[in-house]
């Protein structure tokens, strides 16, 4: 397109834009950050939701789940008769210790039965390789894909499992994913660990036989008719299953894998509404600042246009077009970045949330919303500036603006000013002359510091969780879970194994805790009064001793049940003799993960009306004998699970390194863009306003360094004010975010390490310094002669 083909005003527009291209780009980058973040989170939400919905539908993910000890198969007719139930799938689901050739540690497997004839009606497997187990082939197994990948097992591979106390050699016949295990997380783990936890699907009849459940099942999942309220079905199902040792039915929203997935989507939502807002608000302000300056410089041209008969609307439209171009630059950059980040983000999710397919085909919606939001913010920023341009009468705009009015501050009247040299006075008066602009510039820089604080705060919080949860609270090296509760002799037996230095018993019983109308399902864990290995720790890092009677519960549970120390709760135990007793809450403690309840182990056993028994043992182990211990543990049929603390910590750190660190680096880039965009524009405007002044000073004999001081000084003062403001905003925002991300399952502690503030300040400082230095170079090209000849 030839420039000549354009109208003169449009040619002027293009030249204006070219002239302020640095600033256009700087604002564009801030808009792009906002748009990018928005597109990234919206498309990731869209992709996760769409993928989950399609996956759940295509593979018939159940809507209600229940586990029992043993229930007869004929019960299925009565379950099917519950209003709204469409499908009933009875299964056998048990856990087992697995032995993988070449892997020293015992692995925990979740055994799930699938019909040997035809596909299951519910929770169908997405077979990635191989086939379902055949009827009568009792040793055939399908294993979950992440688990298979972690151990490089494929069809034809072999593994061993202790099934109901007997070692069984299994042959892998298929690799699969399941909507039930999108997020596969072992009991007590915080992160998926595909090396140590896997899902193994076996033939239904084979598992029935193996676990002595002929003609019976221990797990049932239901598909519902469209429009059925799952909660009413849950209640009805509970009534039916109560006497079969049910630990309570639950709906899909409480299903662990789905819960994590939905929670992730929710967090993305929170982020999508919060962070882009900061960027777009700053972009609006920058647009205003740049446009206001441009209009001041072009006063006489505006007057001239008006004198020629251009109407206000034409002139307004001219500047609006300029803003639209800035907006479009930002939007295009943001779309590009957002698409790419969204894809990256979604692919990253796909590593933790395993889907057989990933639908990342962002619709125009996300892009449209982001574009509309950023154009709106840019135009909002332009309104006052454009209005000022149109409001001036032509004669007025033709006259040069009178020198800006300055006043002596109160400080000056205190006669303190003789301590301050003249260049510093110029700096301070300039910053004070436009307090709103100075404040908003400071606020913009402050926001970038705040973004740095909140993104790095996650690392601090996680370090703190690891420290409290894994390092302080867990003194054991490993925990051995027993298939069923055993007498406390079992603990003594385990203590005699090779390499075991000390042991500590634990008993956990599934229960419903009730207080008034409120009810929570939670295991009550019994530990010694004064724990040596697995300690009950509160968030402040204090060990909590368990009293001889009564419950010690987490503050989260206390909050859910609305009880305080001194109140009583009803414990309805869901195993053994299923006693129902009222127990006082003796103390509460703060914890980040879950909502646990503890009792002294002796008191818990008395409550169960059982002799001293345990179902897990924590151990300290001599690391040199660990391998021998693992070999022995794999031979003991009663051992249902072995979990290693160091493995859990490693997985945690590995996962964090893969995810959070990458996000933090994104945010550092975004925060840098923000600080850069704000300071670059502020410095360019300062230079534009005071180029003449600075050139005059050069003529009067000031050196380049001395005039740089004035330009850099003003930004410096604003940065100096911005840094503590940024720390304060970061502190408050982080607090708010921590609260917004809080869930029943885990809470991110509000911990900001002093280093974080330091790094955030350094980051903000470096970004502003870089942009100011970029502008400072222009001082070398100041035209000293032109400035003397012209009036501003």
């Amino acid at each position, binding site marked *: 397109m030839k420039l000549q083909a354009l109208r003169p005003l449009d040619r002027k527009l293009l030249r204006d834009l070219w002239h302020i291209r640095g600033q256009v780009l700087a604002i564009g980058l801030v808009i792009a950050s906002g748009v990018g973040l928005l597109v990234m989170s919206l498309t990731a939400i869209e992709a996760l939701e769409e993928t989950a919905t399609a996956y759940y539908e295509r593979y018939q993910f159940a809507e209600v789940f229940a586990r029992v000890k043993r229930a007869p198969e004929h019960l299925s007719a009565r379950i099917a008769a519950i209003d709204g139930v469409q499908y009933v799938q009875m299964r056998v689901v048990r856990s087992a210790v697995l032995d993988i050739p070449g892997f020293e540690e015992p692995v925990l497997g979740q055994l799930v039965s699938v019909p040997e004839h035809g596909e299951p009606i519910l929770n169908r497997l997405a077979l990635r390789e191989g086939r379902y187990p055949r009827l009568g082939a009792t040793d055939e197994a399908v294993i979950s894909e992440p688990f298979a990948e972690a151990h490089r097992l494929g069809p034809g591979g072999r593994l061993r499992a202790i099934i109901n106390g007997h070692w069984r050699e299994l042959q892998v016949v298929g690799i699969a994913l399941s909507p039930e295990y999108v997020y596969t997380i072992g009991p007590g783990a915080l992160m998926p660990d595909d090396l140590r936890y896997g899902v193994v699907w076996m033939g239904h009849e084979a598992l029935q036989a193996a676990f002595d459940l002929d003609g019976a099942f221990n797990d049932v999942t239901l598909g519902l008719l469209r429009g059925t309220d799952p909660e009413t079905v849950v209640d009805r199902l509970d009534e039916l299953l109560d006497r079969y040792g049910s630990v309570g039915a639950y709906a899909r929203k409480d299903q662990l894998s789905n819960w994590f997935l939905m929670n992730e989507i929710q967090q993305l939502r929170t982020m999508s509404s919060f962070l882009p807002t900061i960027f777009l608000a700053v972009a609006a302000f920058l647009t205003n600042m740049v446009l206001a300056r441009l209009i001041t410089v072009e006063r006489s041209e505006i007057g001239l246009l008006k004198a020629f008969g251009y109407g206000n609307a034409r002139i307004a439209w001219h500047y609006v077009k300029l803003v639209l171009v800035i907006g479009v630059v930002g939007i295009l950059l943001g779309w590009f970045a957002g698409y790419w980040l969204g894809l990256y983000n979604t692919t990253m999710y796909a590593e933790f949330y395993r889907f057989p397919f990933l639908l990342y085909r962002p619709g125009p919606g996300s892009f449209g919303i982001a574009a509309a939001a950023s154009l709106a913010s840019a135009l909002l920023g332009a309104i006052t500036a454009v209005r000022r341009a149109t409001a001036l009468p032509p004669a007025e705009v033709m006259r040069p603006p009178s020198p*800006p009015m300055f006043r002596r501050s109160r400080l000056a009247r205190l006669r303190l000013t003789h301590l301050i040299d003249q260049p510093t006075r110029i700096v301070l008066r300039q910053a004070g002359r436009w307090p709103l602009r100075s404040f908003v510039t400071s606020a913009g820089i402050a926001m970038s510091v705040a973004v740095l604080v909140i993104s790095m705060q996650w690392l601090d919080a996680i370090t703190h969780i690891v420290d409290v949860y894994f390092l302080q609270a867990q003194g054991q090296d490993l925990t051995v879970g027993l298939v069923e509760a055993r007498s406390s002799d079992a603990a003594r037996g385990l203590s005699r194994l090779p390499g075991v230095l000390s042991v500590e018993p634990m008993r956990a019983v599934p229960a419903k805790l009730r207080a008034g109308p409120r009810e929570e399902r939670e295991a009550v864990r019994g530990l010694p009064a004064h724990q040596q290995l697995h300690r009950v720790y509160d968030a402040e890092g204090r060990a909590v001793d368990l009293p001889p009677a009564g419950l010690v519960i987490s503050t989260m549970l206390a909050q859910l049940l609305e009880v305080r120390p001194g109140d009583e709760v009803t414990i309805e135990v869901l195993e053994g003799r299923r006693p129902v007793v009222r127990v006082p809450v003796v103390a509460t403690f703060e914890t980040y993960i879950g909502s646990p309840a503890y009792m002294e182990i002796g008191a818990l056993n008395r409550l169960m009306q059982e002799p001293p028994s345990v179902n897990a043992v924590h151990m300290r182990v001599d690391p040199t004998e660990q391998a021998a211990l693992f070999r022995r543990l794999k031979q003991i049929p009663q051992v249902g699970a072995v979990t290693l603390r160091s493995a859990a910590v490693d997985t945690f750190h590995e996962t964090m390194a893969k995810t959070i660190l990458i996000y933090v680096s994104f945010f550092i880039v975004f925060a840098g863009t923000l600080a850069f965009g704000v300071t670059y524009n502020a410095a360019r405007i300062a230079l534009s306003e005071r180029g003449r002044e600075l050139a005059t000073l050069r003529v009067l004999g000031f*050196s380049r360094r001395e005039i740089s001081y004035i330009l850099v000084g003003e930004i410096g003062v604003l940065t100096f004010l911005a840094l503590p403001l940024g720390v304060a905003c970061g502190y408050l925002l982080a607090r708010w975010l921590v609260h917004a991300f809080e869930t029943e399952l885990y809470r991110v502690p509000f911990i900001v390490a002093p280093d974080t503030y330091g790094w955030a300040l350094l980051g903000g400082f470096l970004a502003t310094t870089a942009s100011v230095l970029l502008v400072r170079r222009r001082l070398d090209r100041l035209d000293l002669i032109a400035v003397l*000849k012209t009036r501003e």
Partner: protein
Amino acid sequence: MLRTRNLTKVYRTGEVEVHALRGVDLELRPGELVVLLGPSGSGKSTLLNILGGLDTATSGEAWFEDHDLTREDDKELTRYRREHVGFVFQFYNLIPSLTALENVELVTEISTRPMEPARALELVGLRERINHFPAQLSGGEQQRVAIARAIAKQPDVLLCDEPTGALDSETGIIVLEAIENIHRELGTTTVLITHNAIIAEMADRVLVLGDGRVQQERRNESRRPARELSW
């Protein structure tokens, strides 16, 4: 004190060459008040800029005492301006965020042998308005502050580029009186650029520039006081 030999200056803008100076020979003696007279485009501003260390020559020599201004780098020229030259501009170029007194102090802070800033303002008759900001002063007052600012460092040479160009004649004369007063009191070598021939009458010597050359040089037998001028 200041002398040039065969000074030339060629500006190149795109494909156009402008010969602003075509070989100027000039000598300024200490304590002289010289007016450079000429129409616009005659090269008088270019000459002043080179003498003031703001611009470099294309060829020829320009000496201030034993400094060769044509051979000095930016740093040395900055020092030359800072220590030896006082500038007065057509549009005053005051710093709007500083009061009259502070505008003067701006210069005295960085000079080696300044006078009292208040005395500089007294010399231009602005004793009463030293705490006013530029926005609170008239054009003539602003220009007198600029003169005070230029001479407060006690420069060896005072260069004034069309100091009355933006003022009406009455105010312009007050400004010229201030320059005259300074010249009398301090004996500063003063160069004044103007296209107004009447102003030339207050000079010791008048150099008429045209087409990049000194076309005429004349000495006034007696200087007319500024207050007697009118245009």
